[in-house]
C-alpha cells in the first residue's frame, strides 16, 4: 500500500507551507527520518522528514508550491507500486482545504488561490474528495460575484452525493465551488445541474455569514506601472503572516501609547561592571536590551493586569502565571519574536545567553515553533539604529509591547545646573481592551524605577 506524505502542521500559527526545495528525487529510496524537502512556514524554513521507509514514487507538488496543512506532498511505496488510489483519495486534497478559513482569508485578500493550480505549482490531480485532515472548520466565503460559494463540510471534507461528484467531474466543475442544498449542506444532483446550466444553486445565506464577515470592498488594484520599472518580489509566508497578524492587531486592539524617558546613567555603569566581570569569567556580554528584558520581567510579575491577554472568543481576560518576554528580532524576510521563558526568574547572564542563541537561530532559520510560542509580553528595540523613540504594534495575544529607543547623551538640569546625562525613551503600546491608562503607567513606572536603580535587578 502506497503511503501519502502530507504537509505537517509545523507551528501553531501555520496554515500552509511552501515547498522550498526538494532534497530527494522520484525513485530514491528513503528511510524513516530522512529529510526529503525543505518547507517554509510562516516563521521558518524547516526540514520535511518522512515517517516510513520506501521509495519516493511521486512528487505531487513542484518547488515553490504552497500546500495547505494535510495536503498531499509526495507518495512513498514499493518500487513500481500503483499510486492512483492515493491520488484519487487526495484528488482535490487542495479542494478540501480550499474551503478552510485560511483559504477563505486568501480569497478575500484576492492574492492567490489556496492551491496554485494554474501556475504549474501542482501537477494535475484527479478531482474528487476533499481530504479529511486537520484543517480548521470551514467557513463559507461570500461569493463576491454572486456566483457560487464553497459548500460546508465537516472537518474540511465536502459533502456531496456520489452522483453529484461524478456529474461535477464530467462537467469539469470544481465541486468545492458549489453550495449544497441537501441535508447538512450535501451537494446533490440538482445543485450540480444548476451550476452546469449556469444558474448557481440558490441557497439560503449561510449562517456563518455574520455581518462582521460581510464581503469587504475589493482591494485597490495594483497601480499601473510600466513593466521593467520595478522588481516583483513574491510575498513570502512570513510576510503574509506578519501582514495579517499585525493588521489584525492594529485594527482590532485599540492601542494607546505611554512614553517615558529613563535615566540610564546607572544602568550604563552597572553594565560596564557586569561585562568586565563576565569577560573575566569567559561569559558573554549583557546588552542594554537584556537589562530592559529583565526589568520588564520583574515589573510584569508585579503587574498581572499587564501580563495578560484579551481573548474575546473565549469571553475572558487571561492573567498569565508565567512571565514570558518575547524579543523582536529582525531577519531578512521580516521579524520574529523568540521568547525568553520565565524571564523574571532568570539571571541576566542567562537572559543574555538565551537571547543571543535565539536571535542566531532566527537569523539562520533554524528556529523552532517552541522558540516563539507562548509569549505574554514583547519588547522591540530600534536603539541600535539611532531611533530616539517609536511606537510598536502589539504582538497578539499580548496586551502590551515596549518600544525601546537609543540611549542619548543629553544635557539635563540637576540641582539648577545643566549637566551631562544619559537618557533612553521607551514607549509602551497598550491594548485598551485590557490595560487602562493608569495600569499601563504604573507598570511603566516600575520598569523605569528598576532601570534607574539597576541594583534592583540583582535582587
Amino acid at each position: 500500500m502506497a503511503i501519502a506524505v502530507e504537509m505537517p502542521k509545523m507551528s501553531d500559527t501555520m496554515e500552509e507551507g511552501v515547498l522550498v526545495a526538494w532534497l530527494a528525487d522520484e525513485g530514491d529510496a528513503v528511510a524513516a527520518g530522512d529529510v526529503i524537502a525543505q518547507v517554509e512556514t510562516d516563521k521558518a524554513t524547516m526540514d520535511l522528514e518522512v515517517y516510513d521507509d520506501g521509495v519516493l514514487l511521486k512528487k505531487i507538488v513542484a518547488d515553490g508550491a504552497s500546500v495547505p496543512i494535510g495536503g498531499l506532498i509526495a507518495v512513498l511505496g514499493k518500487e513500481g507500486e500503483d499510486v492512483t488510489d492515493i491520488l484519487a483519495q487526495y484528488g482535490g486534497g487542495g479542494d478540501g482545504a480550499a474551503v478552510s478559513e485560511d483559504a477563505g482569508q486568501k480569497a478575500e485578500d484576492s492574492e492567490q488561490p489556496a492551491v496554485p493550480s494554474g501556475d504549474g505549482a501542482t501537477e494535475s490531480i484527479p478531482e474528487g474528495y476533499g481530504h479529511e485532515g486537520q484543517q480548521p472548520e470551514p467557513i463559507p466565503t461570500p461569493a463576491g460575484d454572486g456566483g457560487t460559494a464553497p459548500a460546508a463540510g465537516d472537518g474540511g471534507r465536502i459533502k456531496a452525493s456520489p452522483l453529484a461528484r461524478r456529474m461535477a467531474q464530467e462537467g469539469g466543475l470544481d465541486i468545492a465551488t458549489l453550495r449544497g442544498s441537501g441535508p447538512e449542506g450535501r451537494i446533490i444532483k440538482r445543485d450540480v445541474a444548476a451550476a452546469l446550466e449556469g444558474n448557481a444553486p440558490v441557497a439560503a445565506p449561510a449562517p456563518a455569514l455574520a455581518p462582521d464577515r460581510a464581503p469587504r470592498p475589493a482591494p485597490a488594484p495594483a497601480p499601473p506601472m510600466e513593466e521593467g520599472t520595478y522588481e516583483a518580489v513574491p510575498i513570502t509566508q512570513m510576510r503574509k503572516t506578519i501582514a495579517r497578524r499585525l493588521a489584525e492587531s492594529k485594527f482590532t486592539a485599540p492601542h494607546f501609547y505611554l512614553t517615558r524617558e529613563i535615566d540610564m546613567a546607572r544602568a550604563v555603569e552597572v553594565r560596564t561592571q557586569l561585562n568586565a566581570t563576565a569577560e573575566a569569567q569567559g561569559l558573554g556580554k549583557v546588552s542594554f536590551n537584556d537589562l530592559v528584558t529583565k526589568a520588564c520581567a520583574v515589573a510584569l510579575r508585579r503587574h498581572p493586569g499587564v501580563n495578560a491577554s484579551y481573548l474575546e472568543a473565549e469571553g475572558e481576560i487571561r492573567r498569565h502565571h508565567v512571565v514570558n518576554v518575547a524579543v523582536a528580532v529582525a531577519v531578512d524576510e521580516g521579524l520574529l519574536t523568540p521568547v525568553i521563558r520565565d524571564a523574571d526568574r532568570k539571571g541576566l547572564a542567562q537572559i543574555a545567553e538565551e537571547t543571543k542563541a535565539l536571535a542566531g537561530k532566527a537569523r539562520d532559520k533554524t528556529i523552532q515553533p517552541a522558540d516563539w510560542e507562548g509569549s505574554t509580553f514583547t519588547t522591540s528595540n530600534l536603539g541600535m539604529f539611532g531611533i530616539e523613540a517609536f511606537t510598536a504594534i502589539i504582538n497578539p495575544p499580548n496586551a502590551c509591547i515596549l518600544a525601546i529607543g537609543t540611549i542619548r547623551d543629553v544635557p539635563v538640569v540637576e540641582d539648577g545646573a545643566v549637566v551631562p546625562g544619559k537618557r533612553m525613551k521607551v514607549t509602551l503600546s497598550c491594548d485598551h481592551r485590557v490595560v487602562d491608562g493608569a495600569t499601563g503607567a504604573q507598570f511603566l513606572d516600575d520598569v523605569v524605577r528598576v532601570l534607574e536603580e539597576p541594583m534592583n535587578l540583582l535582587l
Partner: protein
Amino acid sequence: MSESANHPMAELQFREALRDAMTEEMVRDENVFLMGEEVAEYDGAYKVSQGMLDQFGPKRVIDTPIAENGFSGLGIGAAMMGLRPVVEFMTWNFTFVAFDQIVSNAAKIRYMSGGQLKVPIVFRGGNGAAGQLAATHNNSTEAFYTNVPGLKVIAPSNPDDAKGLLKSAIRDDDPVLFMESELMFGLKGEVSDEEDYTLPIGKARIAREGDDVTLVAHSKSYWLAMEAAEELAKQGYEATVIDPRTLRPFDTGAVVDSVKQTNRLVIVDECSPYGGIASEVAFRIQSQCFDYLDAPVARVTAKDTPAPYAKNLIEAWMPTVDEVIAAAKGALYVE
C-alpha cells in the same frame, strides 16, 4: 403485467392461479404430486388445492400429519428418486420445524453429491405478516431462506405472476421456495390464457415507470409501493416501481438500470430490517451503481421487534404507505 399483455386474460383469484399452475403441471407430468397438511380431504387450509383430490386421487394429492420435518424429508427423498413433489406448508411460520431438511438437505444435496443427485422440489405456502396472529405466526421468512445458497426463493405479488412462476418452479431441477402472502389468496387479477404459460425465474417486472425515484417491493409490499407511487404522482413525483418477483436469484440489473435513471432507491420489505432483503438489495445497488446515487438508499421494513398482537400495534409494526412516501421524499430531498 407486461409479459402477458398480448394475451387474452381471465380474472382469477391468487389461490385459483396457484391451483391452475399445479393442476396443469400434474396433468403435463405424472411425476408431479402435492402433499401437505389438509391439502386433500379439506381442500387445503386456504382452499388452494380445492378439487384436486377428486381430479388426481389420493396417490397424487396426499394429506400428511402435522409433522413438517417428516413430510419435508419425505418430499426431498422422493425428489432425489426422480419425482417432482410440491410440498404445501400451511404457513411458512411452520417451516422452522422443517428448517434442517430444507437448509441442510434440499439446498445442499446437489452440491454435496457433486451433481449426482438433484432435488426438484417446490415448497410453497402462506408467508408474511398477516394481522393479529401474534409473534410466532407473523414472520416474513424470505430473508432466512435467501441466505442459503442452493435455494431459489420466489414471492409473487399477483395471480398472473403466481401462475407463471409456480409452473416454472415445478419444472425447475432445484429446490424452489414459493412464498404466497397470507393476505393475498383472495386477490383477484388477470391471468394469461396462454397455453402452457410460464415466467422466467430471476426476472423482475417493471410495474410503473417514473424518473424521480425507484421503489422496489415484492409480494404484498408491492401494493404498498404502488399506492405510495400514486400518491407521490399527485404531489408531482413520478416513481418507478419494480417487483423483483424472484428474491433469489435477484434481478439486480433491472434495479441498477432504473437507479441510473432516477438516482434514488427505496426498498419496501416486510422482513425485519437487520439482514433483510432490503439490506441485500441496498448493498448490491451501492456496489454496482454507487456513482449514480444522489441520496442514501432508503428502506421501509417491519419494525425490529417480534410482531405484536394488538391490532393498532401490528398495524404500526408493519411497513405503511405513509412510510414509503416519506422515505421516497427523503430520498428526493423534498422533506
